[in-house]
């Protein structure tokens, strides 16, 4: 009989808290968006599913051994941990968790060992998060794979499109200002680190956003990653109105001159030049852009096909599965269900809009002074969100003029945007990291 009661009292239903129920619903919503609406499914399917797993009551998949022991353990275990952390027996769980967070090496290890001895383990998702994100490895490996998938040909054929990739990053910094502004007004409560991490959403670059958030604001990582990927998926909806607003019909009609042929040698030199430049000017961007250049060099050098192929397929897929589930493990109700998340979603949207606008305006400006015509529509591709943003530019170009194929021209600013936001990330890490 007691077994029956145990079974019931330890069931999910009995222990389900409202927050968990809501977060499970959020997870299902993300799955719906990914599967039915095709919102970045490669990331949002694992993230959504991970979010559901993380909110299963009593399973503790997203918690460390100590957290699980404190939640599920009997008083003797809890007291043992309290003492391991230098508190007196009978301290309440909140206090113990706080002490655990700020404990020094010895007592930290003692607490962990105590929990393990009492037969509590790290949750699966907690382990995945530690290995893939806390170590910083997963976003970097994905960036390597992205580098191996990136063709810098269009950028090399027309290097000044790099300016568009620069302009579009204004969205990032404007958002930072917005975040601190809202805090100053007392509407939100973000530290400068939080603000910086939120701003990077405007970079429209998933791995960069996750990498920065893991360094500057791990507690916001879930919301930031979700916002970043959702808005990247929404690019086809967010950008067109802004682009139409800022350009005239005649500007959109503008055809650009055929891109010159780019030699293999140039493509091999480019990642090395970029690497050296980063090394000399901004070491803090070296991990991100270093791995990106490494992937691109493997792609272009032509002598390591099998490595490049693995980096673009088996490896990036494996890492994506773990990264997605790990991000999902951060979708806990206490961290996700608060006003800040709303703020993050709002600010992320603003960041995208401003970035798009600045890209377009910059393109208009350049068109004034450029010898060859530059269609302002390609400016919006500077936010990156490869390759959707470029496709959007192409689509609007064709609407205005059926002969106007902008895709290749938009790929330049598109990949420039990836570099731009990685540089911006480096600056953030340097200044507030």
């Amino acid at each position, binding site marked *: 009989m007691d077994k029956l009661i145990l079974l019931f009292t330890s069931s999910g239903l009995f222990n389900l808290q409202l927050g968990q129920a809501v977060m499970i619903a959020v997870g299902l919503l993300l799955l719906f968006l990914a599967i039915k609406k095709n919102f970045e499914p490669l990331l949002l399917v694992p993230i959504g599913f991970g979010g559901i797993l993380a909110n299963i009551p009593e399973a503790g998949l997203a918690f460390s051994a100590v957290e699980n022991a404190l939640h599920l353990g009997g008083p003797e275990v809890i007291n043992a941990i309290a003492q391991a952390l230098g508190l007196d027996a009978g301290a309440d769980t909140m206090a113990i968790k706080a002490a655990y967070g700020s404990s020094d090496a010895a007592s930290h290890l003692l607490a962990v060992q105590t929990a393990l001895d009492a037969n509590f383990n790290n949750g699966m998702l907690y382990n995945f998060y530690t290995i893939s994100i806390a170590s910083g490895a997963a976003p970097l490996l994905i960036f390597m794979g992205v580098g191996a998938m990136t*063709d810098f*040909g269009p950028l*090399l054929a027309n*290097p*000044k499109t*790099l*300016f568009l*990739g*620069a302009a579009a*990053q*204004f969205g*990032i*910094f*404007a958002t*930072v*200002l917005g*975040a*601190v*502004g809202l*805090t*100053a*007004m*007392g509407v939100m409560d973000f530290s*400068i680190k939080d*603000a*910086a991490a939120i701003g990077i959403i405007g970079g429209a670059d998933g791995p960069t956003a996750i990498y920065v958030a893991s360094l500057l604001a791990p507690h916001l990582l879930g919301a930031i990653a979700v916002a970043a990927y959702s808005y990247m998926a929404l690019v086809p909806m967010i950008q067109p109105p802004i682009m139409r607003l800022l350009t005239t019909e005649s500007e959109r009609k503008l055809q650009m001159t055929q891109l010159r042929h*780019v*030699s*293999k*040698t*140039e493509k091999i*030199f*480019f990642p090395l*030049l*970029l690497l050296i*430049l980063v090394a000399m*000017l*901004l070491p803090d961007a070296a991990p991100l852009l270093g791995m990106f250049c490494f992937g691109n060099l493997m792609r272009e050098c032509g002598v390591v*096909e*099998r*490595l490049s*192929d693995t980096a673009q397929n088996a490896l990036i897929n494996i890492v994506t599965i773990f990264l997605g589930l790990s991000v999902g493990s951060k979708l806990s109700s206490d961290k996700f269900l608060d006003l800040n998340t709303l703020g993050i979603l709002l600010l992320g949207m603003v960041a995208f809009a401003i970035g798009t606008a600045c890209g377009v305006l910059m393109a208009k400006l350049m068109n004034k002074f450029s010898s060859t015509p530059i269609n302002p529509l390609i400016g919006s591709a500077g936010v990156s969100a490869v390759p959707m943003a470029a496709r959007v530019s192409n689509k609007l170009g064709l609407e205005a003029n059926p002969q106007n194929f902008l895709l290749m021209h938009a790929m330049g600013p598109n990949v*420039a945007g990836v*570099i*731009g936001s990685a*540089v*911006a990330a480096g*600056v*953030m890490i340097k*200044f*507030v990291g």
Partner: protein
Amino acid sequence: MEATNLINEGLTLMVFGMGFVFVFLTLLVFITGMMSRLVERFIPEPQPVLATAAPAPVAATDDGQLVAVISAAIKQYRSRHPR
């Protein structure tokens, strides 16, 4: 006080951040352009080869999988050990 402080931090971050991004990418534009000119001057793509080798890169760009496929197949036969 604390608020204005935060705002100031945000402003400096914006000014220096945006500034740095522009400086960096401007440098990249120039270096890249220089590199391209130097490459065209000193390491031009062999003309005769271009006639024959042109298809290859073209194929590579429009459907990478064909190349991937061929190289995969070839690899499976005579890929050297990665050692």
